[in-house]
């Protein structure tokens, strides 16, 4: 380690940063359409079940892994997992598990941000374009406007670099003066903007006189009415995926933030507060803005889009509503802020990775990460510009792996290591210094029982499901026949697995160097 490890400045700052880590773009655009698409109120049953059975147990495991790793000077997942795993298996086996975790975490933190930073750039661009009224001209469809936007190098690169620059300076500021300060400013703003947008949404009245039944309240009814016939395995999978995505679990970034805690800092109450704040932003705020607006203007057929909902459907509605450019700017700025508070967590993970393995100072490490993100983000920007398409296949393919599949694999690895290898030592580790104590029955029932078993079932079912859809072929079914985009999908796969393999090797070398003696003897020497 090149520097003394930093700490959080205050408990409020820590919780806001952790909540900011979790509250992201997914809360405001992904959750509403998932709920609307998968049974409305009925979706909430598997959603809350997944929150309790997987989300909260994994959240506690990640906080505890991170705090314990920080005590031994680690800010990245590989060595943290190694330390707990070798309590249940020999160090030479534990290093393989740690290397896998470190490789997956590198894949997720580097590659999720490769496209996530672009979406933040789009939201920044659309904030400006809302204020200038650029998409208010009804002669151009907002769909065409979006296609023109992502094929316009000046917009795409300009706002992407702006987003990256904000992240760069925040990361250079460090934990207290960068990450914590950003969270203290942006998180309250997100909640205030959310409340203002809800008030505007619910006072829209009946914007389409030809359709008097299309109101924001009818939109709320649509999203909350339990349609039990839509509740099936796919909806359950969607609920589990949403919980992982929204809580930012299975990425390594919660562990990284928790590594800046002091060894006896509370993690149970802080972790649960983070979950509660995230759910407030998602279910209460996120569920009451986009879908009710879309429903009021477009009816039930207008609520099924994902990215299209934010960048195509809603702008067409901002054109028609009073103060539409202000409401539009506020909506996109809300998304930008939510995105930035999550992206900085992934950014900081990579800064910590560099600092942990080299003698690089934080500022230089931040610049290196900035350059890294430019390299991995280029294909995302170039695909629509060079191919003159708007399918975003490279982005979609990378997201399928690092924003979806790997989250489950990494989360499963973490909980197996804590629950089944670290075993009963995990409970006092979680409870140390905590105001609320996790009961023994909860630890045994969930962390050692239901949660890992359920995750294995979900992962197996998901793999079978996607295999049936021809997903694992070298030319997957969803892009078959499209000769222009096939190379972009294949390139995405090469990049994903290349980064993970490199991450595994880097982690292996790092753990081997730090714990050389016990790995040589294949016996645990440093007792936790």
């Amino acid at each position, binding site marked *: 380690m090149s520097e003394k490890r930093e700490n959080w400045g205050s408990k409020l700052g820590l919780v806001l940063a952790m909540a900011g880590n979790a509250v992201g773009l997914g809360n405001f655009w992904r959750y509403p359409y998932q709920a609307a698409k998968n049974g409305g109120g009925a979706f909430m049953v598997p959603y809350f079940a997944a929150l309790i059975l997987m989300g909260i147990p994994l959240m506690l495991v990640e906080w505890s892994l991170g705090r314990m790793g920080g005590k031994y000077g680690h800010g990245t997942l590989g060595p943290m997992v190694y330390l707990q795993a070798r309590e249940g298996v020999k160090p030479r086996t534990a290093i393989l598990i740690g290397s896998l975790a470190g490789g997956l975490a590198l894949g997720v933190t580097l590659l999720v941000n490769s496209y996530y930073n672009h979406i933040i750039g789009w939201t920044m661009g659309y904030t400006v374009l809302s204020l200038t009224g650029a998409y208010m001209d009804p002669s151009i469809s907002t769909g065409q406007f979006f296609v023109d936007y992502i094929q316009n190098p000046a917009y795409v690169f300009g706002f992407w670099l702006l987003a990256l620059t904000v992240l760069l300076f925040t990361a250079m500021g460090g934990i207290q003066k960068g990450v914590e300060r950003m969270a203290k400013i942006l998180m309250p703003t997100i909640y205030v903007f959310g409340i203002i947008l809800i008030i505007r949404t619910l006072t829209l009245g009946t914007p389409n006189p030809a359709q008097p039944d299309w109101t924001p309240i009818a939109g709320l009814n649509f999203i909350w009415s*339990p349609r039990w016939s839509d509740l099936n395995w796919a909806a359950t999978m969607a609920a589990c995926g949403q919980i992982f995505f929204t809580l930012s679990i299975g990425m390594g970034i919660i562990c990284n933030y928790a590594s800046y805690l002091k060894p006896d800092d509370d993690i149970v109450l802080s972790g649960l507060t983070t979950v*509660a704040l995230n759910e407030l932003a998602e*279910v*209460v705020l996120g569920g009451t803005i986009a879908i009710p607006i879309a429903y009021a203007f477009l009816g039930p057929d207008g609520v099924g889009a994902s990215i299209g909902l934010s960048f195509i459907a809603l702008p067409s509605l901002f054109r028609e509503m009073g103060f539409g450019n202000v409401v539009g700017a506020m909506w996109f700025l809300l998304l930008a802020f939510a995105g930035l508070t999550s992206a900085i967590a992934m950014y900081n993970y990579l800064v910590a990775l560099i600092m942990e393995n080299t003698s690089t100072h934080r500022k230089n490490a931040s610049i290196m990460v900035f350059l890294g993100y430019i390299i991995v983000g280029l294909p995302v920007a170039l695909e629509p510009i060079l191919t003159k398409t708007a399918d975003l296949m490279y982005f979609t393919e990378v997201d399928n792996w690092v924003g979806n599949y790997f989250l489950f694999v990494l989360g499963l690895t973490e909980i197996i290591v804590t629950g089944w290898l670290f075993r009963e030592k995990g409970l006092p580790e979680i409870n140390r210094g905590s*105001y*609320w104590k996790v009961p023994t029955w909860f630890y045994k029932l969930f962390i050692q029982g239901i949660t890992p078993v359920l995750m294995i079932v979900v992962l197996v079912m998901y793999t079978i499901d996607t295999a049936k859809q021809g997903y694992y072929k070298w030319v997957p079914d969803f892009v078959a026949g499209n000769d222009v985009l096939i190379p972009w999908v294949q390139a995405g796969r090469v990049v994903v697995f290349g980064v993970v393999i490199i991450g595994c090797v880097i982690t292996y070398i790092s753990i081997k160097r730090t714990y050389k003696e016990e790995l040589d003897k294949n016996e645990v020497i440093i007792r936790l």
Partner: protein
Amino acid sequence: MSAGALAFMISAWGIIIGAVALTLSQLVKHSK
């Protein structure tokens, strides 16, 4: 809005807002 939808929404909102109030108040209490 149907009674079922309203019941779902109010229950979910109630649980979440209650959880936020409880955890934040405890956090403030223990921070002193």
